[in-house]
Structures are given as structure tokens and as C-alpha cells.
């Protein structure tokens, strides 16, 4: 057989032992077929029963945003001089021992007055790269695609559609706390979209 029989399919060369079983007896066949179908049904049923916990397992991370968030401290208020923007660090509240360095999260704290803060996520509102604060020019710049933000977090230029993401904050006995726990993205922080215009900022729900 040097040439493949093209286009017809090659015939099976070994005799199939199963074909020898009484093909003509309708009774045997129907019983075997019934058992065969029962076998398939049993496997199907077990499959469905197994699928439920498997799907539940696979979708375990899919949770409500709030279930990941909690209040974390950024340290004493004295660390943040009035009128300045400082880098602050915290450990992500939901973490595992094998996270290594990845649960060190940074954010920018802008102290507008003694009792008023703005806490910005480090992640650019465009694609999440780490923006850098330049106190001299009072700008945040993103290294990835050139997004730039003013000191108040509003968009200055570049591809972002909105200003920097912000965290909720509160002051608890001399400590600055923020509501954090997940990577800020458009899906969990974009409910209030700030669209910056030349004349000023206007807020609209989005």
C-alpha cells in the first residue's frame, strides 16, 4: 500500500471483534442499546452534578466589589504636609502569604487642608500603569501612553478618558484610612466619570 487512497477514507484493516456479536437479533440489540443509553444518561447526570461545584470553584474570584474592600490605614496624618502630594504605601487587605511583594500597594495622598484629603490610585485611568507625581510641575505623568493629570487628579492630556481614580478616605484617631482592596479599574471606580474640559471640570454619571 504505497499510495494513500485519496480521497476515499482508508478502510479499517483489523477486524473489529465487536461486530461479530449477533447483529441480527433485535431483542439483544435493544437491550444492549438500552443499557448503553442508560450508561450515557448516568454519565451525563454525574457530569451535571460535578459541573455545578466545578463552575462554582472556577468562578470563586467573581465577587461583589464590596466584599474585597475594607478600610486600611496609610499612617499618621503628620506624614502628609498640607498642600503637598505624597506617596503612601499599604498592604492590600485581602492577601495570602505567597503573594510576595505584589500586595504592596502605593497611592498618592494629597492633603488639601488640615482636614481635607484626596487619595489617588497609582493606576492610570487609561490602562492601569503606575503614574508618577512631579511636585515641581504639579503633574502626574504616566510612562505607558503618556497620560498626564493635574495636581487635583483631573485629566490634563493624553489618552485617559477621565481623571485619576480616587479612594474614599476617613480620619480615625489621627490616622488616615482609605477604603481599598482591589485594583482600581473603570469597572469598579468609574461610576462617577470626571470629564475634564478646558474651562473646568464637569461631573456626569457614567
Amino acid at each position, binding site marked *: *500500500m*504505497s*499510495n*494513500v487512497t*485519496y*480521497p476515499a477514507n*482508508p478502510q479499517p484493516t*483489523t477486524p473489529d471483534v465487536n461486530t461479530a456479536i449477533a447483529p441480527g437479533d433485535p431483542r439483544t440489540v435493544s437491550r444492549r442499546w438500552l443499557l448503553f443509553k442508560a450508561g450515557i444518561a448516568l454519565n451525563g447526570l454525574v457530569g451535571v452534578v460535578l459541573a455545578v461545584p466545578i463552575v462554582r470553584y472556577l468562578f470563586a*474570584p*467573581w*465577587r461583589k*466589589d464590596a466584599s*474585597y474592600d475594607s478600610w486600611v490605614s496609610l499612617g499618621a496624618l503628620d506624614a502628609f504636609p498640607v498642600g503637598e502630594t505624597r*506617596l503612601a504605601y499599604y498592604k*492590600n487587605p*485581602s*492577601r*495570602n*502569604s*505567597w*503573594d*510576595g*511583594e*505584589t*500586595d*504592596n*500597594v*502605593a497611592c498618592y495622598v494629597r492633603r488639601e487642608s488640615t482636614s481635607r484629603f484626596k487619595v489617588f490610585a*497609582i*493606576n492610570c485611568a*487609561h*490602562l*492601569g*500603569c*503606575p503614574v*508618577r507625581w*512631579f511636585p*515641581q*510641575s504639579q*503633574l502626574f*505623568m*504616566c*510612562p*505607558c*501612553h*503618556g497620560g*498626564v493629570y*493635574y495636581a487635583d487628579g483631573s485629566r*490634563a*492630556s*493624553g*489618552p485617559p*478618558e477621565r481623571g485619576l481614580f480616587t479612594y474614599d478616605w476617613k480620619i480615625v484617631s489621627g490616622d488616615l484610612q482609605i477604603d481599598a*482592596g*482591589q*485594583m482600581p*479599574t*473603570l*469597572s*469598579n471606580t468609574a461610576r462617577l466619570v470626571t470629564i475634564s474640559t478646558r474651562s473646568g471640570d464637569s461631573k456626569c454619571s457614567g
Partner: protein
Amino acid sequence: MQRMKQTTLNVYAWFERRLQLEGPVKDAALHQVPRQTASWWYVFGSAAFTLLFLQIFTGILLAMVYVPSAGEAWRSLNVLNHQIPLGWFLRGLHGWGSNFMVAIVLIHMAQVFLFGAYKFPRELTWIVGVFLLLMTLGMAFTGQVLRFDQDAYWGLGIGASIMSRVPWIGGGLVHLLLGGPIIAGATLSRFFALHVFVIPGTLLLFVFVHVWMVLKLGVNDWPMPGRVVRRETYMEEYHHLAHTDGIPFVPGAFWKDLIFSGAILAAVAVCAVVFGPFGPSGQPDPSIIQTVPKPDFFFLWIYTILSYLPPQMETPFLLIVPLLAIAILLALPLIAAEGEKSWYRRPVAVLLVSTLAVSWGVLTRLGTTTPWSPHMSAWSGDPLPVNRIHDATPLARQGAVVFQVKQCRNCHSVGGSGGERGPALDTVATRLTIDQLRFKVVTGGGNMPAYGKNLSPSEIEALVRFLETLHPANEPPAYDASRRAVEATQAAESAGEASRLAPHPGSTP
């Protein structure tokens, strides 16, 4: 000697009686292929196949040392690089093998497209091939994640940010992608599972189906202008061609596959030795913000597109275009199953491939230079050309300090260094008058932020005096004619005054 030969033959016969592989292997090896398909154009598929096995092999070797834990992965990569003898070479082989594989798969696809090989009866071969391409890219991306460094970390961040743009379920998808609320241990573990089990397993299965169909349906015949594919007649025509003007696949066509695969493997090895492994770059610690993340080579074009899309188009583009592109690729053989195969009769196909190739090249080139990104340390690290400082007035020199300290340099280059986001300023004084410079600095515009709020009047004055000096020696700065006239009259007046005050030279300046 004779006895040894006999023993070998006996052993072979013992195995063959049980395995019964001789028939199918002979069928596959000796089947007739059209003579012209024994071409150097037909070697890319087998080269991709070879590279896949190189990747599996080197991947298994790396997995013996690599620790798929967010806390340890980065360190284990450095152990591979520096403490395991030739660990760096294995990493180089795997990394370069990945690049070569993506490249070869893309070339294979372009060749198959131009040769019309997706037409009847090979539609399913093409469709399976599209999935193979997607899985190859998936392997490249997940592999980049396993190289758990800053690029991997922020690359995941970009992935998550794109996911988050999906309406309604975006948040859930981000959690699913990351395995939790942030990029952390769970993220690396699931990408390890994807890279090592899920995608390679599926990939092997699809490769089997792909190759099976190539063997069953025969290698695509060399396209001839005028030889039109018709469902009713093609099989017969191909059969006729393969048998009247055909040669057995082995060795007639296969020797070229063998040599090309060998050459590709050698090229991978040479690249691994000469250029070494990729990364790892800095620690995957998100609190290190002095980082400039960049994706791997084959994703640079996406990185470029993301920077040039207008903001309002971004979400629709990111979510619709990939799906649309995949749908078009999958539907192509179903829509165009018949007709001309030859590129001489398919100008649109040729134009499409060349346009895509040129665009891809341009986008990738831009992605390597990233002219849209501010250079984060240009303001403090890029010195100004010495002659600009030497010949400057004290005020202009102070303006140069302002230029640096206020991070103008991060976006504007002078003397070839600095950011490229904004225009280079080497000759800005020939384009803008001093008043225009002042206006531009204060109000910004286009992609430039307004600096009026952040600069004092003196800083602005010094800055524009410095910018005014940025012109070639033989080309004077731009000037406003009316301003000149005013200055001339002022100068005449003060000259008159000066002559009156002449007896007291050097009084109050």
C-alpha cells in the same frame, strides 16, 4: 554481524506486531503530493511544529526549577539565570523559541492565505489554524506573565484594565482574570495553569487535528492562475494532479522541511547564545513606581494602537475589533471556499497582506521607540547641549534650569535627548515668537498641559528667554514685526535719554 541484524529485525517485528504502526506511517510518509508543492514556501508549517516541540521540551526543563509562586517566581528566574549552569541558555532558548514560533506561525498563515490554501476542502484546516494562532499568542502572553517581573505585572494591569471596559460584567471578568481583587499570588498560579496545562493541552489536540487534515486532504496544490477551485470537481482534479505529476512526500518534499526546521532550531540557539534570555526586569513590586512597563515584541503593535486611539473610541475598539477580526478570519474559508487560488488573480488579498505587514511593522517600530511616552527621568538625567549653556545669558541659563526642573524635558527633546511626546525644541525659536512661546507655555494646548498655574512670572520669563535661544546659529529667531517697531522707537527714545545722561556712565542699571 548477520546475527545482530537478524536480532534487530526480530525485535522490530516483535514491536510492529503489537503496535501495528508501519502501515499508517508508510501511508503518511509515502503519499503522493503534487510535485510543485515540494517548495521552500511550504516549510513554515512543519517549522512551527518543530518549534512547538522545542517549546514543550525547554518548558518542561524550566519547570523543574521555576517556582510558580508570586513570592518566589522572580527569585527563581534569577537563580535560573545565574546559579543553575546554563539555566540562562535554557531560558534564552524558550524565550527566543517563543518569538520564532509566533513569527513562523504568522508567516505560515500569510503564505497559506496568499496561496489560497484555505479554500475547499481545507476550510476546517484554516479554522483550526486560526485557533492555533490564537493559542500561540496566548502562550506568548501567558509566558510573559510567568516571567514575573515589572513588565509582567503591569502587562497584567493593562489586561485587567481592558477587561474592565466590558459593560456590566467587566468587574467580574477582572476578578476572574486576576483570580482575586488585585494582581497577586492567585494571578500567577492561574496563569501558570494556563501556560503549562490548559493552552498547551488544547494546542496539541488542535495541532493533531490540523496535521491529520493536512495528511488526509493532501498538501495544497501550487496555485495556478486560471485553475479555479470548484466543490464539484476539485477533489478529482487534485487526485489527478497528485498522481500524474506527483512525488512521494518523503523524501521528495520532506527534505526541505527537515533542513528548514534544523536551520530554525539553530537560529534559535544562536539567538539564545548571542542575545541571551529575556529579563527578568525589576521585582514585581507595585510599590516600585520608577518603572517603564513595556510588552514583549509581538504585543508592541497593540501597545502602539492603544496610545494613538482617540479616548472616546478606545473602549469600542478594544472590545469589538478583536472579536470582529477573529470572526472574519474564521468566516473567510466559508465565504471564499471557491474560486481563484493564485495571487496573480487576487490583488485584494495581496494588498491586504502587504498593508497589514507594513502597518504591523510601523506600529511595532513605534512601539519600540514609544514617542508618546514622557521620559520619566529626562528632567533630572538628560544634560543639555553644552553650547546652549555656554552661550546663554544668565537669565536664559536660569530658564534652562526651569526647563529641566519643571519637567518640560520629559516630553520635549533638545539635542536629541529627552521625551518625544511633544515636538523637539532645537529650533523652536524659529517657529514661535517670544510672545507665542509665552502663550503656549501658559495655556498649553493640544496635548500639552497648561503650565500657567505652576510657574511664576519670573520662571515663565526665564523659560521663554531660554527657548528663544533655541535656534540654529545661521537662522535668526522668529520675531513679531510690530514688536520690533515698538522696540526700535523705545530704543531711539532711551538713546536720546542716554545721551542726555552721558556724563554719568554706569549709573543705576
